[in-house]
């Protein structure tokens, strides 16, 4: 039987390298994907998700098991992403042209197999607009949406990750949804 994340984390606290490697293998894809969804830059997502694993290694001893390991780890990761975004906000305004992932349109990433070309174009345009709207959401709103939709996290877990109340998470989701709906309705 595979050891539980929480048990592995305890072993990491005792500097068990094998346990750490196992946790990295389990979470690397999810961590990178979530970081990329928030940061929208592959290099930054790689760096920040790796930093989250380093923090996990350093802080494993402070995991008390009051929440699930995944919630605790996502909290570290999302905080790093939000910090990174805050610190690099001014810089991104200058180097937006160099942003490797923004040069790739949502259409490049999303080949949609639809038979009717007109319908296909319209749907792809909507998707593109929706993608841009997600990019423009406030970081916490976006994080709430991503944790909900991508990671299937419960409201109380998102609240722990974002260090806010469940009611605030609901507000984040509602506001995000209102923004996204407006985008779709405009089309």
């Amino acid at each position, binding site marked *: 039987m595979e050891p539980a994340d929480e048990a592995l984390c305890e072993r990491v606290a005792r500097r068990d390298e094998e346990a750490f490697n196992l946790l990295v293998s389990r979470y690397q894809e999810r961590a*990178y994907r979530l970081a990329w969804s928030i940061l929208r830059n592959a290099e930054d997502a*790689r760096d920040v998700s790796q930093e989250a694993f380093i923090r996990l290694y350093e802080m494993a001893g402070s995991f008390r098991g009051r929440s699930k390991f995944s919630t605790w780890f996502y909290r570290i990761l999302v905080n790093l992403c939000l910090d990174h975004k805050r610190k690099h906000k001014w810089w991104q305004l200058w180097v937006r042209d160099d942003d490797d992932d923004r040069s790739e349109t949502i259409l490049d*990433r999303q080949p949609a197999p639809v038979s009717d070309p007109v319908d296909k174009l319209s749907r792809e345009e909507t998707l593109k607009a929706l*993608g841009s709207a*997600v990019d423009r959401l406030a970081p916490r709103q976006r994080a709430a949406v991503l944790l909900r939709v991508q990671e299937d996290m419960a409201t*109380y877990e998102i609240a722990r990750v974002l260090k806010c109340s469940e009611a605030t998470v609901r507000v984040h989701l*509602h506001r995000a949804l209102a923004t996204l*709906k407006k985008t779709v309705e405009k089309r």
Partner: protein
Amino acid sequence: MARHPDSELVPYLRGELSPAERERVARHLEECPDCKQDTEVLRELLDNNVARAIGEAPAVNWARYRAELREKLDRRRVRVVWWRRPMPLALSASLAGVLLLVAVWGTHQVSKNGELIGPDEVVMGQELGLLQDLRTVERLDLLEDLEVLRNLDGLATEQQG
């Protein structure tokens, strides 16, 4: 009321639950306005293809990713640990001790000369440029006592004449 089926709402909307689980979640939604509201928000998000719009992250070479992570972790450990090692710690302590000794000894040497100039005098000296000529000024006082100064003007007139 039973526990909120938070983590089952997305699978519920995607039709991924078993009939029994689906029934249980549906019953809960009828009774719980919070979960019902959450479900509506989620349905809208999923219907609007938010997950697709967010897109797929660019591919990563995971072996390289882990190798980089290992490298960063090793670097971090070295950085954190070097000053805790006995040698650097002893070296730093010795250096600090020597610096302290030099400072104390230097102060002692200066005070032994007895030629210390007060800070107010230094400031005045910088402003007036007089301190460097202090000894001359003192001697001028002596000359005045001997009535030499008073006769200097007369001597100069005689030389011109």
